[in-house]
């Protein structure tokens, strides 16, 4: 057990995870932030993606203790007052998802990517999201949602 302090969705949180506990399990079990989903536990599917200090990270490949003193954003941090963000709204408008299990990972990955690449085109977006697996949609609706969000961001 190690005492850690970290910032999660803008709030200071503390915990005492076992050294071997993944960040994904810590977020879900210890902090009750179950929006982060665990899809493969070996870093391929991207369902558990969160943003740490501005970068998209697979929380199944990181230990909770490694997140000490870091700034973590999970899906719950994107619409804290219930108001959907631009990307979430664009994905709703685009019918981006079906079962919703991969959704938080895609949204976190796309959020980090769009903040660094606001002018990205379709092929760039496809490559940026190619580390996230969706089994339901065939991806087109997800790509359309990200493209729509980028367009709306540019118009603002």
């Amino acid at each position, binding site marked *: 057990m190690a005492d850690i302090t970290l910032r999660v969705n803008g709030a200071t949180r503390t915990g005492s995870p076992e050294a071997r506990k993944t960040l994904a399990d810590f977020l879900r079990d210890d902090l009750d932030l179950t929006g982060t989903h665990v899809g493969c536990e070996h870093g391929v599917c991207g369902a558990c993606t969160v943003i740490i200090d501005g970068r998209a990270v697979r929380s199944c490949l990181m230990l909770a203790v490694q997140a000490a003193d870091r700034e973590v954003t999970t899906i719950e941090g994107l619409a804290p007052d219930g108001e959907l963000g631009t990307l979430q709204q664009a994905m709703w408008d685009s019918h981006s998802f079906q079962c919703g*299990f991969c959704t938080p990972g895609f949204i976190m990955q796309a959020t980090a990517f769009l903040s660094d690449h606001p002018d990205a085109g379709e092929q760039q977006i496809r490559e940026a999201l190619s580390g996230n697996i969706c089994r339901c949609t065939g991806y087109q609706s997800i790509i359309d949602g990200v493209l729509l969000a980028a367009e709306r961001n540019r118009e603002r």
Partner: protein
Amino acid sequence: MTAIAAERYTGASIKRSEDPRILTGAGRYVDDIKLPGMLHAAFVRSPMAHARVLSVDVSAALALPGVVAVLTGAELETMTVPGPDALMALMGWAGPTPEFTLLATDTVRLVGDPVAVVVAESRYLAEDGCELVEVEYDDLPPVVDAAFALDPGSPPLFANLGDNIARTHSRHEFGDVSATFANADRVMGFHIDVHRHQNVPMEGRGCVADYDAGHGVMTMYAATQSVHVTRIAVAMRLGMEQDKVRVLAGDIGGSFGLKIGASREELAVAAASRAIGRPVKWVEDRGENLTASGQAREESFDVRAAVSNDGALLGLDVKMVIDTGSYPGMGAMVPDIMEAMLPGPYKLAAMGFESTGAITNKAPYVAYRGPWASETFVRERVLNLIAKDLGLDPVEIRLRNVAPRTDPPAVMITGRPLVGVTTRESLERVAQLVDFPAFRRRQAEARAQGRYLGIGVATFIEAAPGPRPPEGPSGPMGMESMRLRLTEDGIVALFTGQMPHGQSHQTTLAQIAADEFGVPFEQVRIVVGDTDVVPFGLTGGSRSATMTGGVALHGARQLKAKVLDFAAYLMEASAQDLLITDGNVWVRGDPASAITVSEVARRAASGQFGADVDTTLEVEATFDGGEGGWSGGTHCAIVEVDAGTGIVKVERYVAVEDCGALINPAVVEGQIRGGVAQGIGAVLLERSAYGEDGSFQSATFMDYLMPTACDVPRIEIEHLETVPLDADVNFRGVGEGGMIVAPPTVVNAIEDALSPFGVRIYEQHLPPARILELIAAMDPGQ
């Protein structure tokens, strides 16, 4: 949520009411459930494909702090009722029925076969406990392929069967098979293989079982396609009355046929909760999911085709062997559907079909999106092979063979009428959209530069729900029920046994009910996932558009009539003169008379009325599918094959489909695209791979490759809506078609691309290494 303005919700791409929770991480999946005192289960699994279990020593695991219990297969047998696979029992299977235990007791039959379950204070500790369980095995020869399984010398996996036959050989003939083949201009023969691949929902299987000893009630939080089928399975195996088992389900992270009923692991978790008296959660990890949850396909076909010189496919004679894996269920039953479906939309004069099911030391065969799909692969592959031999265009050979649309409709040689099938129209439309002559010119230019482009088409029909059976709907896939109630708050509540896991029923059923009843979309609530309140139902088989859409429509109509009878009493008007629009009840011609539906509901609930006034604003509706009908269509792919690397790129993909009237076009198109992506994955990437010793070789996402955003092209979709069949309900399902027809579409395109090498393709899995082998076999110089 903002109000949605639409003339009619049905037919519009209404935004999904599921999405506000899905998009904010507020969905509630089974792994998100946390109950007081909840324990966690992990399974000890066999590392061998086939072995005798000599001993299981759990003492070290039990001594580990945090481990609460370890139950072996033998112990679980004393706590549960032996019996056949629940799904086989429910489907009325009468063939070979292996006797097997919940967990393995004396024999393990696949890598990943569960031997014991460790229950501990956390999943981490449960997995630690698994490491400490010592199992002594004695190797048995693995039965890794169907050919060996059917050899009388192979060691039987199940003692009570005495051999490895899951489905005894059967042969059926339709039409005059021998005369058709004797009189044909030519008879061609092929051997075609479909490889093993699997569902892989992003959320694996899982459950939380919570046994309340005080009340003798088991509550199961499940990820399932049917809470009621899960309840039946739990009650059967645990020896409980069904009404003492309550199954609840929330959001479900996909299934594609995998999560029907309750798996052996889930039943063991239920038994463990009952034995320990605390809630127990089990959520499989990806390794368990890939290794042990179930796999599909892997059939081989010996095909003879009777053909005329002008390209008519006169007859097919097919011998199929299906590899059902280790614990037979769906795999034993699916050949009957394949036999019935093999003619497709084509006018065969005769057909013979033989099938045998083999039991092997692999994961069990489960339903996977379009479980009968391999017959479509065979038929559409054979048509292309014939076309190549005769020098016919792939669209032309299909147009020559497709059954004409007549009244009454043409009947498949296997017996079902082709009601509403518009294959011809979809073929013609695809040809227009794609412009074959222009493609052939581009293909020739590309070949001159050493680039290999190819085009492929394939057609399919999907029984969604299929033509109205003469004997009426029956069995688990039969009549659909729904309870509808106008709640005290004025909400139109639909209680359905559908268990959506991505299909968007919360949106689509509300669209239909809102239109039919006359309330805003937001005033309809869809209630799912609780055996205490929803009627029997199952989400699967592409049936919900017609069956549940239909019962929602007719049920809303019945509920409306009931509400209007009460409103007529309140408003001192005749029910025939009342209308409901936009949530208001009013007398025709007198808008000032309007009162809200909510007010009507409040008054009904007020208890102010005598027994002579019916204030129960609730109906039980059923729907038999009406006139039913098929979905279907034609898909077309253009691919480029890199002859140097073997990499196939899908450049363009066009789907022309007819599913009747669309409830929500964006939802329909999502289903089609998702299915096509799985079909592309099946051909180019995915394979459940076993070694010669039965070892499992694709237990991670680095070995079992899934299509990503860079592998799936934009999919162009056009809808035909040619034939209204029913006065009210013309919605037909689209859940499976994409996955059924994409594999032959893509393989046909790849073969076309490789035609300069003379390559003929008789298999479905074409990763780069295999493409290079196919080219090298034709061109040793390459």
